[in-house]
């Protein structure tokens, strides 16, 4: 379990273990993970990569998530506006279809409370 050790020898089960984090970036990103390792290593169906809604939404603002994908097909009305063709979209401040600018800051940042009441 301890980081960086080459071989494991048998040991008593530790009651506490300290994991020192030097940087906030080392914090785990999802609830199924604790600093220094996975807490619930055995879940039904095996260990899976789980993200909750809030974490996924937070990732949206990362610069890595904002560049247009390469080879995005041009489907008018779907990946580009009905008329204009999107080509040299290097600067994303004004991409023509970019729902980044429409939705997330307003209705997403408020988190769970922003969920609508639905009557169907």
């Amino acid at each position: 379990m301890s980081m960086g050790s080459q071989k494991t020898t048998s040991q008593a089960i530790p009651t506490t273990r300290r994991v020192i984090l030097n940087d906030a970036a080392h914090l785990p990103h999802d609830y199924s993970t604790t600093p220094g390792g996975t807490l619930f290593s055995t879940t039904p169906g095996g260990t899976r990569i789980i993200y909750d809604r809030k974490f996924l939404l937070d990732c949206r603002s990362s610069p890595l998530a904002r560049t247009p994908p390469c080879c995005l097909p041009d489907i008018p009305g779907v990946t580009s506006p009905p008329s204009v063709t999107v080509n040299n979209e290097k600067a994303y401040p004004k991409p023509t279809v970019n729902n980044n600018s429409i939705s997330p800051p307003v209705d997403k940042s408020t988190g769970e409370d922003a969920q609508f009441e639905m009557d169907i």
Partner: protein
Amino acid sequence: MNNKFDALKDDDSGDHDQDNSSPKDGEKEKNDEEDKEANTTKRKAVVPGAGEHPLQYNYTFWYSRRTPGRPASTQSYEQNIKQIGSFASVEQFWRFYSHMIRPGDLTGHSDFHLFKEGIKPMWEDDANKSGGKWIIRLRKGLASRCWENLILAMLGEQFMVGEEICGAVVSVRFQEDIISIWNKTASDQATTARIRDTLRRVLNLPPNTIMEYKTHTDSIKAWEDFHGLVNASGGR
């Protein structure tokens, strides 16, 4: 000529509900060839980039739109559906999603499909043929938000049903929108119940929301019956 059937067809979500009117548009055939090309080429394996958050599975976005005046057949369904792209990480997902229109703003009779890479959003795919889907009908105005919540739950592995999930569809129709989630084994009741409960939770559905489970076998049967009715040759 077959307006009376349109209501029937529109009552289904996101799959073979083709327009079965006049099969007389030979001039579209060329486009079909190109579309097919676009669907089969560019199959490079996507991997998460440095510093990105990997997903449990790779997924592919698809888009389809019913073109009026198409012959109804599996082939035309397959040719009508376009791959938008595949992704392997959370960040790559957002790159696509942020450059696509939201389903509530789509016009006409269109669908977005988000399926695990390698699974076609078709009943006939090996992963789907014994499967089924949960269907939720939404009044207009809710589709964008529900779709986002649905796919975020799927990508984040919130359903906890192992390998069972195949993909999700949002279908924009005339008076309502439909979202659905497809799984592999229709007969696995523990799985379908868990998917239903997760849907309730992640979509914030009120307890009285009607959710319908439909096996693909039933969908195929209904489709064949319907086309037998209007078109003796069956169309497929």
